[in-house]
């Protein structure tokens, strides 16, 4: 059992750590914001081309599909921590530094992109074939057909963004290895290395609340957008 005095000591420690927790929260939001946005754009495009080059679609091309699929599988095979280390020379070239939340965002964006690409491909596959056919029969341009596909798949796509965002939140805990900061990193440094269990517990609760909130927003939006 936790006694009253132990509880008040724990709270005192957390209060003393306020600046670090605040900074870590900001870092987490920065990493999450940049990487989610980048992954939606890059992974979205990649996923669209994955789908369009697959069998029976209008860019049907076995070689292209094989290549895009191969790259996606290869990139997704990397454990996140190893990807981070493997990418550090590239990160240094692009960002100018291999450490910090921005550097971590780049790695998160890459990992997230290929993850999201598969989710997009799956979502587009759910759109009935007949809708593409009807749109083609009207004489729509390929770009218009893609817009129709995305609009028909929008509810599933929102849920996929939700999953992406939560996965990136979880990955970002490992970003501490390259000084990325963030809540997960703080929990490991204080909670694990310094045996301050209360910091660990508090941050895990914070992360849980964030996950619950992201999922709730995603679910709400998906239902609102779904007219099927």
């Amino acid at each position, binding site marked *: 059992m936790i006694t009253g005095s132990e509880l008040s000591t724990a709270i005192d420690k957390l209060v003393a750590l306020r600046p670090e927790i605040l900074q870590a929260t900001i870092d987490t939001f920065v990493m999450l914001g940049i990487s989610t946005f980048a992954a939606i754009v890059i992974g979205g495009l990649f996923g669209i081309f994955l789908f369009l080059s697959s069998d029976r679609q209008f860019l049907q091309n076995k070689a292209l599909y094989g290549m895009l699929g191969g790259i996606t599988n290869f990139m997704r095979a990397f454990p996140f921590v190893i990807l981070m280390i493997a990418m550090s020379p590239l990160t240094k070239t692009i960002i100018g530094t291999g450490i910090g939340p921005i550097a971590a965002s780049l790695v998160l964006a890459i990992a997230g992109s290929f993850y999201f690409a598969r989710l997009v491909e799956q979502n587009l596959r759910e759109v009935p074939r*007949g809708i593409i056919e009807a749109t083609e029969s*009207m*004489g729509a*341009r390929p770009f218009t057909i893609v817009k*129709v596909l995305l*609009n028909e798949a929008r509810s599933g796509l929102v849920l996929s963004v939700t999953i992406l965002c939560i996965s990136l939140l979880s990955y970002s805990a490992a970003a501490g290895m390259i000084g990325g900061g963030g809540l997960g990193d703080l929990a490991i440094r204080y909670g694990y290395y310094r045996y301050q269990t209360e910091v660990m517990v508090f941050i895990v609760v914070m992360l849980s609340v964030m996950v619950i909130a992201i999922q709730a927003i995603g679910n709400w939006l998906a239902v609102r957008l*779904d007219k099927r």
Partner: protein
Amino acid sequence: MTDMIVLNEVTKRFLKDRAGKSEDAAAKWFTAVAPTTLSVKQGEIFGLMGYSGAGKSTLLRLINLLERPDSGRVVIDGVDLMSLSASELRVARHNIGMIFQQFNLMSNRTVFDNVAFNLTVSGFARDKIKARVMECLEIVDLTDRATHFPAQLSGGQKQRVGIARAIAPSPKVLLADEPTSALDPATTRSLLACLQDINDKLGVTIVIVTHEMSVIRRLCHRAALLHQGELLEVAPIVDGNIQAATLIGQGLVQED
């Protein structure tokens, strides 16, 4: 009367699913449409009839090149579709409406937006889209459903939205792929009346694929009888009777 649609020796075959590496053409390819020549007159309602696998839906898809024929010529309203570039074909397709068995409406757009979409795609003047959409919904008697989503409609209503969408850019040809096969008999009757009406008032040439003899008898002027990818004959329909000349054709049109 002039010919609106001319199919000249068109063929289509598909690679069989489990063809393997066989060099034998018969084992590798499935012939959906054997060399077929037929023409449909302007303002005609023309049926494509046959059992499942007769190749009637494929033949219909050859008309707007949703399936590209392996050989032969497709001429619509004097334009040889096979000779067109991709962008020219898109323009030609604005002149060929299509409706489907499963309706294929965009479920995340309202009835109004489904119809408006085809107008936008066809390059219809933006300021006139609204009026034209309501005009088309009027024709199919659905003006009160304009703000509904397809999921809120009955099957018959969905198909009527499909018709409104297809005729919105005033096409000369309407292709109908089993348009009543997902509908009950009463709804089928009202839908056929709707198609008849469009043919009467707008003079749209209609090609309709169906396996239902009653649809052919009620609606069509002539019908192509198809069997295993072959065109048996083109039979006229007189007073609701399909006047088949060939033996297989007569067997085909006999209702049990």
